[in-house]
């Protein structure tokens, strides 16, 4: 297992939403929940110990690999699949170490009754942390097969080869496979098991399509919103009209008199369940018509950035310093300052928050789309005053999260409704609810002051981020006199994680400012960066992108209203650089991304197919935030909380994309679902700076003459 303290410390800054108090506290009975896995041999790995157990798994097993008597091997993990590919990665890792075809591996994810607690699925941790655990467990199962065969046939294990999951006796007459081990058992004491070296990989490193893709393209896969239980009702929640509003009164009879409707109020929670979503909506509409609310004035978008810079409470800023910024600025022949504005953006995954809850004899089962199944189980146990052992959270592969589903709101709400109804309840948030009552990437203000000496080198760097978060706040450039501060602020809107989180904000500001500095120093942006860059991995991706794009040549070309820009960055152990060509509509100030060449390095490539999807997905999601995405709000209501007004990227936004995968087989693999997002916006800003000569210091990007477009940014 990873060191828990170290792990949490590395992710904690992103988990704003987890500092919230419990959303609901409900009353509930206490009963026992028992659930068993199938027959076979279960292998658990903790640190270097191996612990195998014959037969059925205990109620809350921490088994990692299950060798089935049917010849299938099951790998178990508390991680969830929301589109970034861990399911396929774990299947490939298991198949690799067991020398099995991938088709023989089943993957069970995020069922708190069956799988080890692998914590939150976030921070690009599944690849560097969970994949090694899976590989180690599988390697130990392989060692067990070899040792058992050696013992049985009285030969040296080193002479064996495993083919398609079987070893053959020296005379070729007998075979032994994982199903035989499962039936007969084996001595489960730990054996040294070597992980297969990268150079010998046969399954890892192959471009695999997602292992359950067939179920998805036939429509058979049940997402959380597709779980259907016998007698199930559909829920709908009465939401406040604005943030901060509290309920004064509501007459439930308006809903209760409708056929088949269950209506309840428990504190601030008011909801209905009915045999169809249609009826549940009608019932809630009837309640909304008579509900009375107490509203409170709220901060609006146009006051946001001033508000974020006001001091908030006693929380001390996080500060990192080296050298002296003051003396660095004194040495400078040029001093530059800039202030950047980062708006709230919405994750808006295609599947909104959803849960199906079912109570059986005081025990609760919830199917829901969350990245944090074990935490949601704890929340449910606390809310309903039951022991966590009576709560089972199952996370079917769900419809996207991007850091926006670390919580379990729908799970709590569905469970409360199901308890009232005495029947299973499915609660799927509407798109409007997902926009308004989920959480956002934090908005922020970033102030930078820097000095250049007479040789055009950075002599001082003072960087302050208000509210948007500390991810990738440290500059990757060589700096002698620096101060980096993250200042906590009062966020008017609920905020939490995001893809790459504050790396998107910090890198936008830093990399945009680097171009202002290179311009002030009279240097090419690439040369200026390289002159300050010692990190070999970052240099490599920067040079790879620049070379493939033809930076030197294209930088000198002159096309009307068109320009090139570049940016790079590192976060979560991986490295990215992008070169872009942008076309600017001068009248509106709206940019268009014509072409992007992005180089990415995350160590050895585990699955090139999925890696390309992740890099392209990050590029386009980053493009959305660069072009249009910005949550606008006024006195507690969203002004653009719908897909009509909040315009996410579309087919026609897709530029020419060239992805350069820089592979480092000599290193340990890092995650890849986040970092490729962080170079897009600053590279585009720099291209616009190259066209107009005026730096852009706010997202989404609008050149000065901008009059807005049909997207959200126009709804000011």
């Amino acid at each position: 297992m990873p060191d828990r303290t170290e792990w949490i410390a590395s992710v904690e800054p992103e988990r704003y939403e987890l500092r919230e108090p419990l959303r609901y506290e409900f009353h509930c009975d206490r009963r026992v929940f028992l659930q068993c896995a199938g027959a076979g041999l279960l292998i658990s790995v903790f640190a270097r110990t191996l612990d195998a157990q014959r037969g059925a798994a205990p109620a809350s097993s921490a088994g990692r690999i299950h060798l089935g008597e049917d010849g299938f091997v099951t790998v178990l993990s508390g991680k969830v699949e929301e589109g970034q590919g861990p399911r396929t990665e774990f299947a490939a890792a298991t198949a690799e170490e067991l020398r099995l075809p991938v088709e023989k591996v089943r993957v069970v994810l995020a069922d708190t009754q069956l799988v080890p607690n692998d914590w939150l699925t976030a921070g690009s941790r599944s690849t560097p942390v969970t994949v090694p655990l899976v590989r180690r467990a599988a390697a130990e199962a392989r060692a067990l097969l070899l040792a058992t065969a050696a013992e049985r046939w009285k030969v040296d294990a080193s002479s064996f080869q495993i083919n398609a999951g079987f070893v053959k006796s020296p005379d070729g007459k007998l075979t032994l496979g994982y199903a035989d081990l499962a039936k007969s058992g084996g001595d489960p004491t730990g054996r040294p098991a070597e992980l297969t070296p990268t150079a010998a990989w046969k399954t890892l490193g192959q471009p695999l399509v997602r292992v359950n893709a067939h179920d998805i393209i036939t429509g058979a896969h049940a997402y959380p919103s597709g779980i259907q239980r016998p007698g199930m009702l559909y829920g709908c929640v009465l939401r406040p009209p604005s943030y901060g509003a509290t309920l004064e009164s509501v007459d439930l009879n308006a809903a209760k008199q409708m056929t088949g409707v269950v209506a309840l109020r428990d504190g601030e929670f008011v909801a209905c369940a009915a045999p169809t979503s249609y009826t549940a909506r009608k019932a809630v509409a009837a309640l909304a018509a008579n509900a009375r609310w107490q509203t409170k004035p709220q901060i609006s978008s146009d006051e946001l950035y001033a508000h974020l810079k006001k001091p908030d409470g006693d929380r001390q800023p996080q500060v990192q310093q080296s050298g002296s910024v003051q003396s660095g600025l004194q040495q400078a022949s040029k001093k530059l300052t800039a202030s950047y504005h980062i708006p709230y953006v919405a994750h808006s995954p295609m599947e909104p928050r959803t849960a199906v809850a079912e109570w059986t004899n005081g025990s609760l089962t919830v199917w829901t789309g969350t990245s944090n199944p074990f935490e949601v189980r704890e929340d449910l146990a606390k809310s309903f005053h039951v022991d966590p052992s009576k709560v089972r959270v199952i996370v079917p592969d769900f419809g996207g999260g991007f850091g926006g589903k670390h919580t379990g709101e729908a799970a709590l709400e569905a469970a409360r409704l199901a308890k009232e109804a005495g029947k299973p309840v499915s609660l799927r948030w509407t798109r409007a609810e997902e926009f308004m009552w989920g959480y956002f990437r934090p908005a922020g203000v970033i102030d930078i002051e820097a000095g250049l000496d007479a040789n055009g080198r950075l002599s001082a760097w003072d960087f302050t981020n208000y509210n948007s978060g500390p991810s990738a706040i440290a500059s990757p450039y060589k700096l002698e006199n620096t101060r980096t501060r993250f200042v906590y602020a009062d966020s008017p809107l609920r905020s939490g994680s995001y893809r790459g989180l504050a790396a998107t904000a910090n890198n936008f500001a830093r990399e945009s400012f680097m171009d202002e500095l290179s311009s002030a120093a009279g240097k090419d942006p690439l040369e200026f960066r390289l002159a300050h860059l010692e990190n070999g991995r970052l240099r490599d991706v920067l040079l790879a992108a620049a070379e493939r794009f033809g930076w030197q040549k294209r930088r000198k070309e002159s096309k009307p209203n068109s320009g090139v820009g570049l940016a790079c960055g590192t976060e979560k152990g991986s490295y990215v650089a992008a070169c872009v060509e942008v076309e600017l509509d001068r009248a509106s100030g709206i940019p268009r991304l014509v072409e992007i060449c992005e180089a990415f390095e995350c160590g050895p490539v585990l699955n090139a197919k999925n890696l390309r999807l992740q890099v392209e997905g990050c590029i386009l999601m980053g493009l959305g935030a660069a072009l249009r995405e910005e949550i606008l709000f006024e006195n507690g209501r969203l002004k653009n909380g719908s897909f009509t007004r909040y315009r996410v990227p579309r087919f026609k936004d897709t530029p020419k994309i060239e992805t350069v995968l820089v592979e480092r087989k000599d290193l340990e693999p890092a995650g890849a679902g986040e970092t490729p997002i962080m170079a897009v916006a600053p590279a585009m800003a720099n291209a616009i700076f190259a066209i107009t000569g005026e730096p852009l210091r706010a997202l989404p990007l609008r050149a000065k003459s901008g009059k807005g477009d049909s997207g959200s940014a126009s709804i000011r």
Partner: protein
Amino acid sequence: MPAFRFNLNGRAQRIETEADRPLLEVLREDLGLIGVRYGCGEGQCRACTVLLDGRPVPSCVTPVRLAEGKSVLTVEGLAVNGKLHPVQQAFLEEGALQCGYCTSGMMLTAVALLKTTPNPTEQQVAEGMNNNLCRCCCYPSIVTAVRLAARLSAMNTQGVGHAG
């Protein structure tokens, strides 16, 4: 309650329900077709796309009464006797999905697009599918998959020709 009759994935279907219920909810909640997906409820993301007499419609804003007497095709009706539709085959081969939630709507829109434009360019795919949102932003590989589906369809047609 009024009754509605339509052809659903090749079979006659009769359903008694409120006339203004969204087709999406009738298909999912009453008929168990969970491959049809809710995305926004306002026809803006097209995750809920079904083919109504061959035309792609957002089922979330299509009242069930409009299906009366028509044919409704959902993702569940794409494969015939277990044989995948060329569009499904292409999405599978290309691996053109991440979370996969939008995939049903993407594939049905692509089926309709290929009927009118059997051999689309990249730009024609982007134009024809621009109303379908994929928040994982699999757009490049979806474009590739749709063009692959065009080639697979052409091969199938030729194959039938030879057999005939």
